Every structure is written in structure tokens, then in C-alpha cells.
């Protein structure tokens, strides 16, 4: 396995990026608490994704996600009405090979199940699946906007035992320093 830092990107980070254009991100910054305003958090998440992508394009880090992201990154009700250009952009970014996919295969699911059976974690089903996928992808960090599931003690222990940090994307530990300081495009 390569030695580049590997970060698992949850679907919500892609979704936040799909919502905001680069020019929408000038009012936010990384590594600053965005507070509780959801719009600000989402913009910061989108900015973080832009930087993570840039670092991956430059070969500094590796982005990993689950194949489940392919079906989660969709419009709330009008997916079929999305333009061909939107489909093309989504396919290029998610399927183009820069983002590595952990398959939703048997062993990833079985390992997620084992966490429930053996460690009494209180993850949601998909959360356990995400953790299992991050392990399979040899990631030390999961970036997600939804961190509520991390807080329960059994979950903290399970993540700690596996050496996985779960952070908001705008506080990513994986993003190299030089990409944290860039101004929004």
C-alpha cells in the first residue's frame, strides 16, 4: 500500500460540494469554528472538499470513499431532471479514479456486523458500514459533517481501537498544511 495519507470522505462532504460553487466559499475558512449555522458549516465543508481534491490531484493524499456514495449523491427528489452536464461532472469526480472506492462487499459488511456483535457499539447501520469501509481502505481519518454518532463511549472506544479519527472536513487532519492556508478560489 502506498504511504500517502488516506482520508475517507463521507457522502455528505460530496453533497455539500455539489451545493456550492467556488465563488460561494469566499466567506468561509478552514480550521476555524464555523459555529452552529448550517449554511456556514456546509460551505466550509465544500471548501474543505475542494482543498482535499486539490491535494489528491497533486498526489499528496489519497481520497477514499464507499461505493455507497455513488447512490447517496443524488438530488432529493428530481434526480432524473438533472442535466447531462451535472451527471457528467458527478461521474467524472466520483468515478474517475482519483477517489478510490471501497466496495460494499461481503467482508466490509461482515466486519461492520461484527462491531455490533462483539463491541456493543451504538453506530447506525450505515455508520458502522462507513467505519468498516474506512478500515478496509486503510484510512486513519473519516471526514463527515454528521459526527453525532461518534460521541457514545463504545463508539469512541471502537474508533480509538482502530486508530480512526472522525472529524468535520474543515478540521481534517489529513489535509496538508500548504492546502490549509490557500485563499478560496
Amino acid at each position: 500500500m502506498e504511504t500517502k495519507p488516506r482520508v475517507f470522505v463521507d457522502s455528505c462532504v460530496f453533497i455539500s460540494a455539489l451545493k456550492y460553487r467556488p465563488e460561494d466559499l469566499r466567506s468561509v475558512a478552514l480550521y476555524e469554528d464555523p459555529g452552529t449555522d448550517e449554511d456556514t458549516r456546509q460551505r466550509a465543508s465544500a471548501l474543505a472538499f475542494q482543498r482535499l481534491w486539490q491535494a489528491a490531484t497533486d498526489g499528496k493524499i489519497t481520497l477514499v470513499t464507499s461505493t455507497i456514495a455513488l447512490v447517496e449523491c443524488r438530488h432529493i427528489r428530481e434526480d432524473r431532471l438533472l442535466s447531462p452536464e451535472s451527471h457528467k461532472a458527478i461521474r467524472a469526480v466520483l468515478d474517475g479514479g482519483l477517489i478510490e472506492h471501497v466496495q460494499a462487499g461481503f467482508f466490509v459488511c461482515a466486519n461492520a456486523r461484527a462491531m455490533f456483535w462483539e463491541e456493543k457499539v451504538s453506530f447506525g447501520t450505515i455508520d458502522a458500514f462507513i467505519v468498516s469501509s474506512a478500515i478496509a481502505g486503510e484510512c486513519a481519518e473519516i471526514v463527515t459533517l454528521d459526527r453525532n454518532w461518534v460521541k457514545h463511549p463504545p463508539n469512541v472506544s471502537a474508533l480509538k481501537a482502530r486508530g480512526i479519527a472522525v472529524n468535520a472536513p474543515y478540521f481534517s487532519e489529513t489535509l496538508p498544511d500548504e492546502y490549509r492556508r490557500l485563499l478560496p478560489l
Partner: protein
Amino acid sequence: MEKLKIRCSLSQSPELLADIVGHLSKVLDLLDKLQNDMGYGSGKREWRVMKMSAGSPLIADLEQPAIVAEPGKRFARALLGMVKTASAPTDEGAPEYSDYGPDTIQSFMTLARTIDGERTMTFDVIGETPPEILDTCKITSATYGGIRRLIRKFVTSTGSTIQGKITEFHIEGNSPYLWVRELATARRTKVMVPLALYGQVAALIENKETVAYFSGTVLLDFAHGITHDMTLKHVEAAPQLQPGDIEQFMGAIPDMTGDLSVVEYMQRMRNGD
């Protein structure tokens, strides 16, 4: 515990003998380590290669006492059993072999090389294997349980997909196959290509498509929590990344989550909240 993959093939090539001598001490070192790690101790230098009656090339590692060999026509004759014995290097530094003698050494060999950071040994079996070992691997009432357990380690699973790069292309007879390295795990998988898909695979290679999606049936290896070997059913090149793709992606669907925040949207999608 260090992973050691072992693959086997059959060859009559006398040139391999030079490789045997050249690589033998390295191979023996690996076998010693393997043996010790498995708890056999240093005094019992016995290695057994077993053959699956069906399926695809199988790989042994340190946790597995039986080294499972690749089946198929090329392997049917020689890989039912193999035992190697050897002693420590002599003062001159050359290995000295006992028990089975140099004929067995010649029958059991070898290239040791490094692939993807994992040590892989390829054994080319040149001579006949000892019949007493063959007997132990025949399906009899005495061996049935062991063989049955071995077979049951693997179950086929359909619908598996690999996002990966083709690293090798082979044709044996009329059976083409690929080695594909999965991006997310760096694991190499042998992908058997049905002739109906040969044209698509050839086009991928000729067009220098670097990343593709390979779907098919795989073997689930419950002992090690990994999959082996795919029989290809569908293959598709990944879309080519172009400059500017990320700019088109960012903000492509401003109203993607409707009135919901991203987190609310995710929770509704995942939990039905």
C-alpha cells in the same frame, strides 16, 4: 505476522535450476520464518502443497498450515503434494539439503520476488512429487474431512466489483486473464476473462485506460477475510478526468437537498428520519 503469498506453477525448464541455486537460500529463509511463525519449530522442515479440486489460484499465507496451489491443467500432475526439507547453510554459505536430497530440491522451485511490498514466492515444480505425499491428498475417508474443510473456506459471491488498474495480461491456451490491482486496497486479483469480453478488455488495454471497473463472481476466503479471483462478467472504463471537472462538480446541484440541511438530508436518507 508477516504475510507471505505463495503461488505455484509447473515447468520443465532446466534454466530454472540456476535460479533455484541462486534463490534457494532466500527461499529457505522465508520458509524457516514461515515455519517458525506457524509454530512448527526449527526442527521440522516440512511443507505441504495441496491442490483444490475446483476454483482458481489460491494463495497461502503465514496463518495457513497448508500451502494451497493453483489448480488447472498445468498443475494437475505435480501439485497434489510437496515436501521440502533442508538444513541450515554450511560454513561455505551454500545450503545443504537432507532428507529428500537434491532431486527434490530440483523439483521444487522458485523465484522469490517482491510485489507490492508483499513477498511472493513462485514455486515451479519440475519433478514428480513423492507418492506418499500424494496419497495424503487423495480424497479418502481419512482425508475427506480436511479437504472438505479446505473447500469450505471458499464460497463464490456474485456481483463483486473492483475499481482498479490492469497490471498484467496473460493468455494460457485460450484462457485470457488479468491481474488487477484494486485502488483502495492495493490487493491484486486475478481476473479470468471470458472470450465474450475479450474484445472489451483488449480495447481497455490498447486505449491505455488506466482505471476501470471490473464486475463478476469472486471467491470469498472466510479464513482470511478477503476475496480471491474474479470471473469477469462486466467491465467498464472509468470516465476520464479532465481539467475543470472539479469546478463543474462544485455547485452543480445547488438545491440538491431541498429545504433540508446536508446533515438532515443524510439522516433522512440513511435512517428514514
